[in-house]
């Protein structure tokens, strides 16, 4: 109970500061649109092949734009040494981590819900064929990305070259979740169900979420206390 309240206190704080300024949200959404436009130069959006790439492109966009939000997660605690204030307070590291992860998750979902229709329009794609399944995939993969991103944000928070290190470290780690999400999203956008062969991807995502969430929750206290 207490743990849950602490988690929510942190999540509420992060969301409140973000809503106050809307800085990372605006930046992430406009970055997402910029990338969509850039991609449309690189690949021909009117070709037939684009259908097979749709999931891939979409998740690339989410990954790149999402990194902006994840990057800020612990970094926003730095400017006034707020991290020290929180770590020395009675809140346990795991509640701090989960609170931030929840806030990031919400923000990422907002970015995704805004960019999906834009993607649909720009690339002439109907993504409402399997809404429930698609939502499930979005939630699971986004949580996976969030956990990795939040954990690595904590890991790199005191680094000299945070902005440099973070993208190089997180994307390779996220790949299992991203790969699965790309494959499943392509299937679902094209209106097919998930064939037996591709269930491995669902299992991969679920396993990823469970394993990395538990790892992160166990290790975050060690990371935060020097």
């Amino acid at each position, binding site marked *: 109970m207490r743990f849950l309240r602490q988690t929510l206190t942190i999540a509420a704080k992060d969301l409140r500061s973000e809503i106050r300024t809307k800085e990372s949200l605006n930046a992430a959404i406009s970055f997402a649109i910029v990338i969509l436009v850039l991609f449309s130069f690189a690949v021909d959006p009117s070709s037939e092949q684009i259908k097979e790439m749709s999931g891939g492109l979409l998740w690339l966009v989410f990954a790149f734009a999402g990194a902006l939000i994840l990057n800020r997660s612990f970094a926003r605690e730095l400017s006034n*040494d*707020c991290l*020290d*204030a929180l770590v020395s*307070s009675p809140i346990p590291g795991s509640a701090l981590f989960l609170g931030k992860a929840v806030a990031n998750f919400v923000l990422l979902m907002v970015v995704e819900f805004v960019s999906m229709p834009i993607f649909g329009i720009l690339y002439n794609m109907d993504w409402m064929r399997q809404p429930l399944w698609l939502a499930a995939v979005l939630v699971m993969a986004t949580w996976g990305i969030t956990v990795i991103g939040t954990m690595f944000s904590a890991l790199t928070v005191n680094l000299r070259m945070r902005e440099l290190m973070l993208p190089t470290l997180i994307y390779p780690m996220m790949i299992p979740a991203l790969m699965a999400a790309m494959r499943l999203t392509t299937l679902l956008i094209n209106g097919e169900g998930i064939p037996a062969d591709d269930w491995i991807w669902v299992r991969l995502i679920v396993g990823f979420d469970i394993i990395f969430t538990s790892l992160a929750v166990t290790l975050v206290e060690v990371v935060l*206390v020097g």
Partner: protein
Amino acid sequence: MSAVSVEGIWKFYGDYPALREIDFVVEQGQCLALLGRNGAGKTTMLRMLAGLLRPQRGVIRLFGRDSRHADTRGSFGVLGHGIGVYDELSAMENLRLFAEVYSVADPERAAQDWLKRTQLDHVADALVREFSRGMRQRLAVARAFLHSPQLLLLDEPFTALDDRAIALLQSLLKDAVARGATVIMSTHQLREAMELATHVALLARGRLKFHGPRPVEMLEDPTWLYRTYGEG
């Protein structure tokens, strides 16, 4: 039960010992000034007391408990170099947040009370981002004192403050000591510290060179301690 007991602490950065074999005890109600030259290890010591760093060897006990124990962490307040409040939130929101974090009984009341005591009640709803340095520092003080901590850990609290802000902080510290709280603060501004300190500890290159009640000589000549126990 002592407020702080430190036994045989060693802290290494890599193989370099920033603190070596530190032992001391601070009783409740004392005000300890932690002195030492640049790089002596004051910040390291305070961060360790606050549970932000772990010693490689030795034991730290605050009120008889481990310093990372959740109850212990609720019983002290920290004021470091940074102010530890959020720029994007208002003064009120910041204090309410920390009141919740510290499970203060009535967050709203506690926050309002401390805004008044630090003379920030007229800007309670302004974002911290718009505050001047002095206002920010006062809010930081409110944040650290909010949950009536039994122990205050302050790292160079007088730095870059003007006379008025220093006077406010000194009077709050005096109140805290009067109600039985313990204070440990590091500083280079000896004169300001000597007004409060009942005890003094001197670190030199990671070793504790002196610890005891404030020598009377220091009232006249604050650098007396350095000359007598330090490296000249």
